[in-house]
């Protein structure tokens, strides 16, 4: 019985610790993304955004998604990939209004994805 109790404690600890790391990592990654998005949005509003600015967001995302693949469904990562790529192209074509709309979608996704991992009734059922 002692063995069973120990295995339960260890297994529970692994899950809880894993969940804690996941939560910290998710919030940190998406908070960084949102900060970057807000900075680019200001530049887009003033129509001074350059391709390098938007590419920095894309690079940040490409770096971040490497570890996000461990605990986020790959379909959600792909969705963000597509929206960011569209933003990049809009900025390259200097369609700043269009880029702002797409960036808003990226921001919304960055805000919503971590929320789906919070322990809430709506996420459980």
């Amino acid at each position, binding site marked *: 019985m002692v063995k069973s109790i120990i295995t339960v404690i260890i*297994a529970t600890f692994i899950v809880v610790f894993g969940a804690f790391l996941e939560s910290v990592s998710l919030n940190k990654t998406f908070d960084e993304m949102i900060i970057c998005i807000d900075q680019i949005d200001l530049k887009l509003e003033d129509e001074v955004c350059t391709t390098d600015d938007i590419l920095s967001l894309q690079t940040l995302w490409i770096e971040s998604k490497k570890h996000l693949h461990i605990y986020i469904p790959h379909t959600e990562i792909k969705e963000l990939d597509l929206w960011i790529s569209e933003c990049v192209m809009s900025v390259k074509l200097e369609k700043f209004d269009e880029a702002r709309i797409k960036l808003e979608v990226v921001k919304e996704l960055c805000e919503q994805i971590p929320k789906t991992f919070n*322990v809430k009734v709506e996420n459980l059922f």
Partner: protein
Amino acid sequence: MLIIFIRAIIIFVTLVVIMRLMGKRQIGEMQPFEFIITLLIAELACVPMTDVSIPLVYGVVSIIAVFILHQILTILEQSSQRFKSVIDGKPAVVINKRGVDIKELKKNNMDVSDLLESLRTTGNFSLDSVHYAIYESNGKLSVLKSEQKDASNQLPLLLVYEGKFDKNNYKLLKLSDKIFDNFLKQNNIKSLKSIDILTVASSGECYLQLKNMPYKKVHFDFSEDVKW
């Protein structure tokens, strides 16, 4: 991760409750929660293995959740007999010295035809060939055979169960209403409703159990040859 863990726990607990409510006939040679674990593990392992859009950690976490629940249930069962009976259920004595316990059968969502089927799998073809029959918590039937052997070599058919007639078996036994009415009169049975169980073999041997009465063996006189 925590969401997956909690969802796995909710599903597991729901399945345990549902399996317990379904009774013993849904289980085969396993305790209810072991049966659920077998069902779940296969599916949990399969989905993340084949669907590349789902992170592997989802499958791993849910399998760990099932493992934790299994360990907790095992610990609780070892420490409390009451908890064990709640989770696994109790063995049900469905045949005793008075005959078939219909209430006990109903508690486990079964009827006499299910009992006869289970008895046949244990090599007993008539209800009076066993002293006791017990449905174990894993759904298996254990029997204590009576000393007297069934010498008739006949397969008894269920004719009446809880006052209801089995028309197919009635035809197989080639009975007529007149013969059956005579049988009822000979045994002082006023209506079919007072019969809990009546099985008849082609040799004429009957197992008759009236409501709230112990069973008795009676003989049925057929007017013509029965080929059953």
